[in-house]
């Protein structure tokens, strides 16, 4: 007997049409007179299979992928009414009472879920669901412990900051605890500005109570009575669910005055970001909450000494907070059992870009990159070779495929010139131009630099100009050397992490893909056919004169008579590629500025 239907309804699911699916399921059940509960849950991490619907039958849980609304009727008829699974749509099967499962894509088997243990299973808007999943048990336990004991536990777990820098969390807590101050703030950093990363969104949308519980424990441990969650404005659903969770937590006495009759009081505000990447940096974030321009300031003094409104302040990332309850419940040793070297526990990575299976995966730290990219994510979407993976966003770098044996730990990643960062992994295949990628990130940092220090404000701008020149007809090898030299100086001369890391994308692509840079400036050719100023569309002698390209061209750059080879006027061509799409004879080629038999 089917006991329950779960529909994944995070932003990713909704973008794929989960709302329509949900409506169709409700309608279909009603028209059949069935009263099976339908539950809205977070994302199970397999965003590439959204909309994702799971059917619970006794202890068996059957997951269906790509469940757009048009598939609902058959699912209801065959599985819900007929009692027989729609085998070809099943992507996952799991049992609550025995070791038995099925994982069609091999996406789940290698994952270990700590941060995401409830995501996709509980209704994020229901505190009862969270409580049923051992929610707030860690808080009950923590309130009976001495603050120092809690801090020791976090320390021994080896947990490190998941916001990017990887600072040991236990040490941060200890430092804040030891500050003698009447007023202390704690902050949850949910700015997640790194484009291509969405771990924090998934945690906040899928399991907001977990972050709240972590924060209450943290506040108790360091002696704070007031906290903030700073969440980016682009995540309206995360903010909505978080606010709802806060109200519920207050109603049940987990937040507010005299929490669980322990004498400890604490509450949380939510601040919505206003669109500035640099506000993810802790001192800039503090300025933003204070209502100022989000400009970083030099440290020391560190926020633990002088932070929000001048008071001692402890900032941790969303994912860092989301680890806390699990550690308190299961013990430091249980957490430290996962991981490698000084990088303990699990880390959530956001797989995106040209990857076959994109989504959030949580794996023990130390897993080699290739296991994540190939075994879990299935390689590239196009079937072409993966050229590189970009890690750490605008502060990180591109790791080339020949280094894919590298285990993902803070130390190993830093050696490659990239960073673990917040956990975004953007996959790039042979159609991605590495100069273009460097240019993309440089453009981003130019726009997001707050302008306070010269190296960051002007240096990144000059670097962008060099990259634009390299990807155009006028680039020279001297530009490449200048780019490398300037990159080192911007790193050394900038005030905050933004500027100190802004050259990384350019420097790592230079380090690993110098040949691509050289092809641009020496041969005036973009090997991946991305940089338009270096591309020339030409019609080869395979052309039979069918006129299809001339008709497709939006700017009428193609001329020629029927049954005769056509040609493209380079002065008119806007390089939109419409002709390649229109030609059925593969007669349109792309060459570099010096290449090919050009007839125009």
């Amino acid at each position, binding site marked *: 007997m089917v006991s329950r239907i779960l529909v994944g309804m995070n*932003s*990713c699911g*909704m*973008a*794929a049409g989960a709302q329509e699916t949900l409506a169709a399921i409700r309608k279909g059940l009603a028209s059949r007179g069935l009263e099976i509960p339908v539950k809205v849950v977070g994302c199970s991490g397999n*965003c590439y299979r*959204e909309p994702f619907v799971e059917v619970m039958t006794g202890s068996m849980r059957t997951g269906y992928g790509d469940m757009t609304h048009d598939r609902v009727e058959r699912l209801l008829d065959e599985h819900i009414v007929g009692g027989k699974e729609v085998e070809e749509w099943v992507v996952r099967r799991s049992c609550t009472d025995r070791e038995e499962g099925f994982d069609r894509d091999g996406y789940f088997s290698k994952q270990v879920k700590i941060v995401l243990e409830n995501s996709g299973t509980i209704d994020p808007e229901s505190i009862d669901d969270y409580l049923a999943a051992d929610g707030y048990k860690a808080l009950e336990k923590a309130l009976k412990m001495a603050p120092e004991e809690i801090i020791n536990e976090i320390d021994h777990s080896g947990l490190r900051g998941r916001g990017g820098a990887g600072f040991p969390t236990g040490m941060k807590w200890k430092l804040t605890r030891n500050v003698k101050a009447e007023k202390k703030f704690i902050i949850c950093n949910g700015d997640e*500005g*790194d*484009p*291509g*990363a*969405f771990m924090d969104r998934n945690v906040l949308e899928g399991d907001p109570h977990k972050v709240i519980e972590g924060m209450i424990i943290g506040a108790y441990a360091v002696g704070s009575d007031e906290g903030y969650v700073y969440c980016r*404005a*682009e*995540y*309206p659903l995360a*903010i*909505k669910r978080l*606010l709802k969770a*806060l*109200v519920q937590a*207050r*109603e049940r*006495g987990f*937040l*507010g*005055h005299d929490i669980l009759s322990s004498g400890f*009081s604490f*509450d*949380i*505000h*939510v*601040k*919505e970001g*206003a*669109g*500035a*990447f640099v506000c993810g940096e802790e001192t800039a974030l503090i300025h*933003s*909450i*204070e*209502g*100022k*321009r*989000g400009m970083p300031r030099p440290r020391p003094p560190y926020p633990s000494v002088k932070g929000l*409104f001048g008071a001692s302040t402890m900032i941790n990332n969303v994912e860092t907070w989301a680890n806390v309850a699990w550690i308190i419940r299961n013990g430091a040793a249980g957490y430290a059992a996962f991981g490698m070297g000084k990088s303990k526990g699990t880390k959530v990575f*956001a797989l*995106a*870009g*040209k990857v076959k299976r*994109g*989504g959030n995966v949580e794996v023990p730290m130390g897993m080699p990159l290739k296991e994540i990219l190939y075994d879990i994510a299935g390689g590239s979407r196009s079937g072409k070779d993966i050229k590189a993976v*970009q890690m750490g*966003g605008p502060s990180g770098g591109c790791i080339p495929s020949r280094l894919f044996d590298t285990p993902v730990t803070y130390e190993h990643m830093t050696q490659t010139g990239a960073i673990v960062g917040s956990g*975004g992994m*953007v996959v790039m295949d042979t159609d991605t131009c590495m100069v273009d990628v460097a240019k*993309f*990130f440089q453009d981003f940092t130019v726009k997001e630099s*707050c302008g306070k220090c010269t190296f960051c404000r002007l240096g990144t701008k000059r670097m962008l100009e060099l990259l634009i020149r390299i990807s155009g007809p006028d680039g020279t090898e001297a530009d490449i050397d200048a780019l490398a030299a300037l990159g080192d100086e911007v790193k050394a001369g900038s005030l905050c992490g933004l500027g100190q890391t802004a050259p990384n994308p350019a420097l790592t692509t230079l380090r690993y893909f110098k040949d691509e840079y050289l092809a641009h400036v020496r041969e005036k050719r973009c090997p991946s056919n991305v940089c338009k100023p270096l591309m020339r569309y030409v019609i080869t002698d395979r052309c039979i004169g069918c006129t299809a390209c001339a008709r497709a061209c939006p700017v009428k750059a193609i001329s020629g008579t029927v049954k005769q080879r056509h040609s493209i006027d380079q002065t008119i061509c806007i390089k939109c590629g419409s002709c390649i799409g229109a030609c059925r004879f593969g007669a349109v080629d792309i060459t570099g500025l010096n290449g090919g038999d050009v007839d125009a």
Partner: protein
Amino acid sequence: MVSSFPGTPEPPFYHPLSLVPSRTTTGTGLFEQVRKMQSSMDEQTMRNSRLIPLLQAMQEECGYLPADRLKVLSEELGVPLSRMYGVATFYTQFRFEPLGRHLVRVCHGTACHVNGAMQIADAMTDCLGTKEGETSKDGEFTVERVACLGCCSLSPVMMVDDRVHGKLDKEKVKEVIGKLMRGELDGQ
């Protein structure tokens, strides 16, 4: 509801009476109550810290930040207008011109970039005749670019009003815009 800070009826945010609550507000109340809530802070610091949420509330209400409203707020808060503009222009969220009836945000984050965000932007320009950063002449659409909507696994994506559309290509852009123009996505 359980009161969180002694002496306050409802946590955690309040606005002056003249403004609507922002999305981050769970109650409405008086300025005075905030003052009690955070009595440890001096008054001007506290007023300053209200600035960004108030600007957000204003933008939520008006669609942009009208100059005359900013002036009123400046007087109410005791924050100089120059500082207010300093803050408002720092953050990309704030607009100083009215918004079209629909807000289309095309993602240019990393994942969307490598999966062809430029083509999506071009298709948008083709459909609407409106470039990014502009509002269409009939006042129906404002097109903006954003740097990641957090739905990277469905890239390229765009957000129309509060709804994200994923796995886009030129055809799908046309389809969504067509539906918008016919009013089929209204009220969703």
